[in-house]
């Protein structure tokens, strides 16, 4: 009896979690008439019409490329800088390490509005708007603290003896960093990188204010879809599926690290 109750509860839970996702994907495969039919159409022959519409939209393709370029570049910078800082901090006393880590993480509590508007004005004066580097720089600034604290946890797992032995052999710090820490913690570094990509890809508010025509990312671009084609839910859901799908795949790749990473501070909104 208890077992049955357990399985029923589990089924309800999974239904609640998965149904919205299923409905998005199902709607993206329906023709316009079925998408908005009431009562809902459960059985339908899938059509790729909506995807064709989205993929032939130049604005969407451009936004897709922008999202790829921006999230990859910002994440490379974040992880690169983050790894160096984390290496330096791991070598310090516990107190210094925690103090510095706390400081960089504390910068992330502020709502983005407070640093986005000044950044906008400064960027405008330097004629850097509508330039990929400004948005990449801001995302790196936001993600570096996160990368630092996550990488510290990975570097701490590396036995101190490895480092000490190398030092006895007279290796320089940068050599130890490159030859020992990077290879040993490679799994953690890749996970950190993927999480940075995930945060950057999903981010909306900063992109809404700081991107222009040439740098618009997917979450921003999809909102213009919404307003133009208000009720065309089919193409909209197809676009939504294309936006989130890469993140679902990446999320599954680093399953174990997502929650650990997000506990160190998520950058959404």
């Amino acid at each position, binding site marked *: 009896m208890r077992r049955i109750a*357990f399985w029923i509860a*589990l089924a309800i*839970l*999974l239904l*609640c*979690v998965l149904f*919205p*996702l299923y*409905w*998005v994907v199902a*709607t993206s495969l329906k023709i316009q008439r079925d998408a908005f039919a009431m*009562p*809902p159409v459960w059985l339908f022959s899938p059509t790729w019409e909506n995807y064709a519409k989205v993929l032939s939209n130049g604005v969407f393709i451009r936004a897709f490329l922008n999202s790829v370029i921006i999230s990859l570049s910002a994440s490379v910078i974040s992880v690169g800088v983050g790894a*160096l*800082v984390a290496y*330096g*901090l791991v*070598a*310090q006393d516990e107190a210094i390490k925690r103090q510095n880590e706390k*400081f960089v993480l504390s*910068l992330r*509590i*502020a*709502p*983005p*509005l*407070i640093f986005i*508007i*000044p*950044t906008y004005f*400064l960027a405008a004066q330097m004629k850097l708007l509508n330039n990929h580097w400004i948005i990449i720089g801001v995302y790196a600034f936001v993600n570096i603290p996160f990368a630092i604290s996550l990488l510290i946890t990975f570097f701490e797992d590396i036995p101190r003896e490895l480092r000490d032995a190398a030092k006895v052999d007279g290796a*320089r*710090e940068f050599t130890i*960093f490159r030859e020992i820490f990077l290879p040993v913690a490679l799994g953690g570094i890749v996970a950190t990188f993927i999480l940075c990509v*995930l945060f950057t890809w*999903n981010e*909306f*508010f900063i992109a*809404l*204010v700081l991107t222009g025509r040439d740098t618009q990312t*997917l*979450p921003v671009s*999809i*909102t213009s879809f919404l307003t133009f084609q208000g009720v065309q839910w089919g193409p909209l859901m197809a676009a*939504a599926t294309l*936006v*989130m799908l890469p*993140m*679902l795949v*990446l*999320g*599954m790749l680093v*399953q174990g690290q*997502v*929650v650990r990473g*997000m*506990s160190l501070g*998520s950058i*959404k*909104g």
Partner: protein
Amino acid sequence: MHDTTRYFYRPVVLLFGAISAVLTLYVVWLTLHNISLLRPGRESFIGLDNYLRLLTDGRAINALGRTVLFTVAATAAELVIGLAISLLVDRDFRGKRIVRAILLVPIVMTPVVVGLTWRFLLNPTNGMMNYALSIVGLGPVDWLGDPNVALFSLLLADIWQWTPFVVLLAMASLESLPEDPQNAARVDGAREWQVLWHITLPALKRALLVVALIRAIDAVKAFDIFYIMTRGGPALSTETLNLYGYISAFTNFDISYSLTIAMVLTILTNVALLLLYNLAFRAPKQGQA
């Protein structure tokens, strides 16, 4: 020799410190003026007028109330539901790995897409929620159009996306708990709810407080689903302070006032966090020492 490691972190930490100091000063300077995009070249120093205006701005005070309500409700609901679910699945069963993977889906989903999804599901005439209600003879509910309901509809979307986060963290903590005290209590004849209340929950307390803090910080800053689903409407019923700051800047073009709102929100958030943090961690730590 040993100290070359500090060159790995000092420059970056100093740079971060410098950037935040400059930005903070710049923001303070901007809030002491009346900069509007509509009045270029006509801005002047107005001292603390923006802060005084905020104190008497009923719309801002209501928005603050809504921010607190949303934050407390979202955090509490996610914590309670999340804990319940994690206790439910805290056992060995076939497919546990798959359940864990599925729970990850809402967390990694793009928040803008989450907003769109729920806007679609909550559509008053063609949405699934009202269809489901109509099957059991209820509704229709105007989920996003009724000012008494709209904030709860947003809450629903936030709970859907972030409860799994609480579940996964709580699951991890539960698995790392030693089972001996629980079993000992059971041998002594304690009922399950007593084991839960007196042994399991106190052991989870620290982990749950951390989750609560993370969720609360994010809830204060929540923007994406608000922007997509209601943009603060109807009748301001979903306008949080964060959103009001955005609207001040990008609808009213009142840059200085917008930054004043952001500044006050930042200060309030930090004060609240500090209080909570001390309440949560300082006291037990001293007790342990």
